[in-house]
């Protein structure tokens, strides 16, 4: 048998955690494993039935893709601020993230949905602690 690349499942290659900073802001963090990268423009966050939430996506590393043109990618840790549609002091929100990335070994993963429950502090309260995403597979429904 030929050697096939040893690869991480996407939830481990693109570990997601998040915390609420204040009643209207979530800080999400992807820890992209060595040898993997995420596409900046394929990262989306929603809460409940909200549309894509406004997210402050830091600049990535530019890469030329012959079909998509210039794209930006993330490696290592990347921290993204996400604005909630309305203040949710003291509530627990379920944050859905979609992301898509590849391994340098030469494979790409389909868009990977991840979900986590974030405790939102009350106004003036301390930011919550980071929680890690579970491993739900919404798109197999």
């Amino acid at each position, binding site marked *: 048998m030929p050697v096939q690349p040893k690869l991480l499942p996407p939830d481990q290659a693109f570990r997601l955690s998040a915390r609420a900073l204040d009643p209207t802001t979530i800080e999400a963090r992807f820890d992209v494993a060595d040898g993997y990268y995420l596409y900046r423009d394929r990262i989306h966050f929603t809460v409940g039935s909200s549309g894509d939430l406004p997210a402050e996506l830091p600049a990535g590393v530019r890469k030329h*893709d012959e*079909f998509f043109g210039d794209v930006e990618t993330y490696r290592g840790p990347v921290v993204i601020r996400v604005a909630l549609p309305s203040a949710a002091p003291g509530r627990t929100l379920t944050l859905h993230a979609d992301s*898509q990335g590849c391994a340098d*070994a030469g*494979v*790409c993963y*389909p868009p990977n949905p991840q979900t986590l429950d974030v405790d939102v502090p009350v106004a003036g309260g301390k930011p919550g602690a980071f929680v890690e995403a579970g491993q739900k597979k919404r798109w197999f429904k």
Partner: protein
Amino acid sequence: MTSPADRLSPDALPKGERTAVSRRTFVVASACVAVAAVAAGAALFRQRNSRARDGDAVLATVLPDLDGRETPLAQWRGKVLIVNFWATWCAPCREEMPQFVAVQSRDGAKGVQFVGIAVDQVDKVRDYVKEVPINYPVLIGGFGAIELSKALGNELAALPFTIVLDKHGGVAHTQLGQLKSAQLDHLLASLLA
């Protein structure tokens, strides 16, 4: 039927070693050999079985082409069928496709048939083939096709994933990641022999 135990009787051992201890060792050892043989046989049987079953699953697949026509893969039964799961959003997939196009034109007449299953949206794929013509059928699997590839052994659900069927419909090879040109030629040399 000759079991391993019959063929290896204690009488075959030198006289001095036919003690109670060596007999007991022998019984345990031959039991182990028998268990291992049965396990190996079962594993081989399962492997052959799953290769045939996976081949059947591929050939039972029916997916729409770019014009929406339902296309059964069974029409290529009897060919060396190379089914490539890919997507426009997968750069390594796009990189390996020109070699598939080249091999399709080189070996098509010898009984090689490539089929692309796009884990993608039809409009994206239509745009893509306008820019990069593909000389073999491309079918639209959507994200559901990932489930099919998982059932065929693509546990990580990553792309590209390629499965090669021999002319008898059995799985000859599966590949996660790009199929290298030399590897493909080597495979085809044995499958077309």
